[in-house]
């Protein structure tokens, strides 16, 4: 029923989806654009996307810089760096990071990158930008909720950022914040006020994520233009759809876990606490279970890694197809495997807990279900490879990042088969092998998906191109650098070197990698500098980039390329186009591309 109304609406009316949402027309039909409504409290999905993207980039620089600085400690534990004292003051007196602050840094690095960059920055950007544009809607189902989603994200950011400046330092119990460490101020400086701020910020973040996610789901289900059946949607839409469902179903569980932790911290409850003697003090709490938190946390925590990687998969599928001038291979299998991954995402959380003392019998089910994920993942990889087979590849930066994504996804996915197997996990659990695995598969790979999306849709966002020479340098620097950093870490992991250690010199089993740690630290600095190049390219190109001169610069099929070069709020001038086919008719019947808006002619070959 949404479809007919879309076609009958006059172009001046911005929000025009549904007959019984009359009040929306009233709210948006004739608002005057001031600087504040256009750039700050904007309800335009494209502006909100840019807000998420730029906030995400700021966070990425902060989180990335943290990793560079703690890599200095790891690479050169015996040296002092004045720059550390410049940044951290009394936390790095004399140029050496204090242990409490080292742990605060890695905690913040993880929290920032996982939540604020790769969830907020990635989903927030591309769900907002692409969903209305690719399903053919003038805006999200609820632009107001969408705006609130960003501003809750902003509040979460402010709280998290402010926790860096409190007297006792930010949270320092790892991004997973396991109690009792995170519950007891006596156990760690970071578990004092910093931890409360962390929890508060996460609560705000979850609200933001829910507001956004519900909106994405509602928009995709209800606001597709005429002819846009679910199976005609580009894979980006499917990926963002499953991502939103994962978020809506799993984030509330984290919220409950966080609230119980807040209670344990501040109200004297014992959800997670029992039998504790800390710093000479006997705690009264009895009967709680520290493991309960881990279940609640990982019930979000594992879907969370798919919340990070699925949008990247969607972006890569789309960009790869456009630039290979070839349909994505096995569209239905791609959708099916996204679905399978989304379902399995909820059934594997306890593979993070094989050595927590959980029943080995229960663990065996999680081994089985975890390794099952390799099947849809393998299907996706083979389908991507087949997509570029016999294509006509334009190797622009976004296509290179798409190929790089697949490479990283293979490398990081395969090491997941080691970790998901509980027998091997006993040895490599919480070692550098884990660091290497997840940085490659959900860190670097997700970033590659994000870069791929930014280079590809930058023209849609700003009406200009990014500089491609800088793009090539960015790609090669990042691909080579990421492998140089994380590949050797697998060996440290196989040697059993534990993660979250700031110095290995006191150990005879782990001190054989001193030179390697120096090497990794140096490469990290270089790769970080290359990312700054990207950020510079991004902002420079907003104002100075080469202008886009045609509506459909890539010869792509999807609907966003039927909008004006710089679309206003409402996206299409005139009627929203009708869709007649799927998004992937590239190189069909001798034609390089056939847009979704073109009716199927009777003598076209069927696929």
């Amino acid at each position, binding site marked *: 029923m949404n479809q007919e109304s879309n076609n009958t609406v006059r172009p001046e009316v911005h929000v025009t989806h549904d007959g019984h949402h009359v009040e929306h027309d009233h709210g948006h039909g004739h608002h005057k654009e001031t600087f504040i409504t256009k750039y700050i409290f904007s309800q335009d999905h494209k502006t909100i996307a840019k807000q998420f993207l730029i906030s995400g980039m700021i966070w990425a620089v902060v989180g990335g810089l943290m990793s560079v600085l703690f890599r200095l400690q790891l690479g050169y534990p015996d040296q002092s760096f004045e720059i550390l004292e410049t940044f951290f003051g009394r936390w790095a007196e004399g140029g050496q990071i204090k242990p409490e602050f080292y742990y605060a840094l890695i905690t913040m690095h993880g929290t920032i990158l996982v939540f604020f960059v790769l969830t907020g920055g990635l989903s927030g950007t591309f769900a907002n930008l692409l969903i209305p544009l690719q399903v053919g809607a003038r805006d999200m189902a609820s632009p107001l909720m969408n705006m609130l989603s960003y501003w809750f994200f902003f509040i979460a950011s402010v709280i998290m950022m402010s926790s860096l400046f409190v007297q006792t330092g930010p949270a320092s119990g790892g991004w997973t914040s396991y109690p009792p460490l995170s519950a007891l101020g006596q156990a760690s400086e970071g578990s004092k006020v910093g931890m409360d701020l962390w929890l508060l910020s996460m609560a705000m973040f979850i609200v933001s994520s829910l507001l956004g996610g519900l909106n994405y789901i509602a928009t995709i289900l209800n606001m597709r233009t005429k002819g846009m059946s679910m199976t005609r949607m580009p894979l980006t839409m499917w990926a963002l759809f499953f991502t939103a469902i994962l978020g809506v179903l799993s984030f509330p569980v984290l919220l409950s876990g966080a609230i119980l932790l807040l209670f344990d911290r501040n109200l004297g409850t014992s959800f997670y606490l029992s039998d504790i003697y800390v710093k000479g003090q006997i705690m009264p709490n009895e009967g709680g279970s520290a493991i309960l938190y881990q279940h609640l946390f990982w019930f979000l925590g594992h879907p969370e890694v798919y919340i990070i990687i699925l949008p990247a998969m969607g972006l890569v599928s789309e960009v790869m197809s456009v630039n290979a001038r*070839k349909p994505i291979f096995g569209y239905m299998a791609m959708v099916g495997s996204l679905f399978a991954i989304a379902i399995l995402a909820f059934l594997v959380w306890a593979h993070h807990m094989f050595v927590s003392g959980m029943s080995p019998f229960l663990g065996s089910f999680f081994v089985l279900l975890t390794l099952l994920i390799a099947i849809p993942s393998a299907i996706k990889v083979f389908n991507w490879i087949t997509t570029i087979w016999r294509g006509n590849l334009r190797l622009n930066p976004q296509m290179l990042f798409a190929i790089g994504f697949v490479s990283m996804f293979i490398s990081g996915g395969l090491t997941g088969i080691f970790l998901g197997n509980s027998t091997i996990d006993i040895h490599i659990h919480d070692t550098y092998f884990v660091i290497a695995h997840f940085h490659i598969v959900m860190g670097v790979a997700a970033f590659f998906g994000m870069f791929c999306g930014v280079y590809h849709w930058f023209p849609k966002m700003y009406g200009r191109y990014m500089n491609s020479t800088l793009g090539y340098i960015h790609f090669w620097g990042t691909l080579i650098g990421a492998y140089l950093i994380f590949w050797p870490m697998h060996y440290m992991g196989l040697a059993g070197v*534990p993660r979250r*250690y700031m110095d290995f010199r006191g150990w005879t089993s*782990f001190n054989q990698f001193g030179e390697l740690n120096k090497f990794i630290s140096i490469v990290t600095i270089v790769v970080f500098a290359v990312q700054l190049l990207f950020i510079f390219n991004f902002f420079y190109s907003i104002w100075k980039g080469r202008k886009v001169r045609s509506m459909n610069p890539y010869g792509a099929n999807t609907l966003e390329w039927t909008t004006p070069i710089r679309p206003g709020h409402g996206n299409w001038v005139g009627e929203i186009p009708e869709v007649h086919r799927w998004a*992937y008719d590239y190189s069909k019947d001798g034609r390089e591309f056939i847009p979704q808006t073109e009716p199927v002619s009777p003598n076209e070959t069927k696929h």
Partner: protein
Amino acid sequence: MSSNTWIIIALILGFIITFQIAKASEYVAVLRGEERTRRENNRINAFLLLAFLVLGLFGVWYCNDILKGRILGEAASDHGERIDTMLYITLAITGIVFVITQALLFWFGYKYQEKENRKAFYFPHNNKLELIWTVIPAITLTILVGFGLYYWFQITGEAPKNAQIVEVTGKQFGWEFRYPGRDGKLGKKYYKNIDEANSNPLGQIWEDKDNHDDIYVSQEMHIVVGKPVKLIIGAKDVIHDVGLVHFRMKMDAVPGIPTTMWFTPKFTTKEMKEKYGPDFNYEISCDQMCGSGHWSMRGTVVVETQEEYDRWLAGKTPQYAAAKAAVAPAPPTGTMANATDTVNTSVSNGQPKEFAK
């Protein structure tokens, strides 16, 4: 200071130069025709994809060559052997998949670079192919799950009846051990009885007679070569993890929830020192983030023959004796009065010293 400044200056300079080159290349592109430049870039990057594949695979080999000697040697326990076997089975399978898929990916990237006369092949799906690459991974993974669970249940199954029992307790930031003594039974304990000042660091309940011969040591665990050992693991304050890297074993230490693991050590510390040099030590690492001293939470394991072990244990006095000595002279202080009700005799014994790291 100077080195920092220089690094920053070098970075900024590099930045500016890169940017100028990039900008210039854009102008050149406009002058020479964007289409031509695009094609040239395409060729260069296609070649780089191929070069990356070749150099990358060489890099993988090279990395393996220089680092393979630094991962741990032979597993020092029977479970460790199984884990290593499983690791190598998985490595072989994933290694093959890795090389094939990466090679295809980058080779196709090079081979199917844009050419003017090339038409992309319209190939939207093929059920047979898709079936093949669903079934093959499924079979492969079934094999891996099968092997994995077979070993998993062996490793996590019940410890043999004759297993030696040692209780391990993690605390910020060190390890404490308790041996059951001659009766072979660990006495009961309750965390509210912990009283370090009065030699009761684990909160043993002295009314329980099983406690009277229990031996307490800290930082250094002794076990017998060739004899299964079952660890009963707990923690006092936050979650820790008993990481025994040479035995390939690991288990969390959770306050309030005892966990267990067992294994059979294969080599004595002395044998390992002969093999890997005099610096060798079986180390216990904490593998679960536990606070600011996590990275230094080190303990050691001494694996020795039965005679050496018996001699070592005979030299230890039960904690009960130390506690009685500590309590009798002075009335119990603070919160722990109830724990010491039954302690009324005095035997002199030094409290075990914390071993320095």
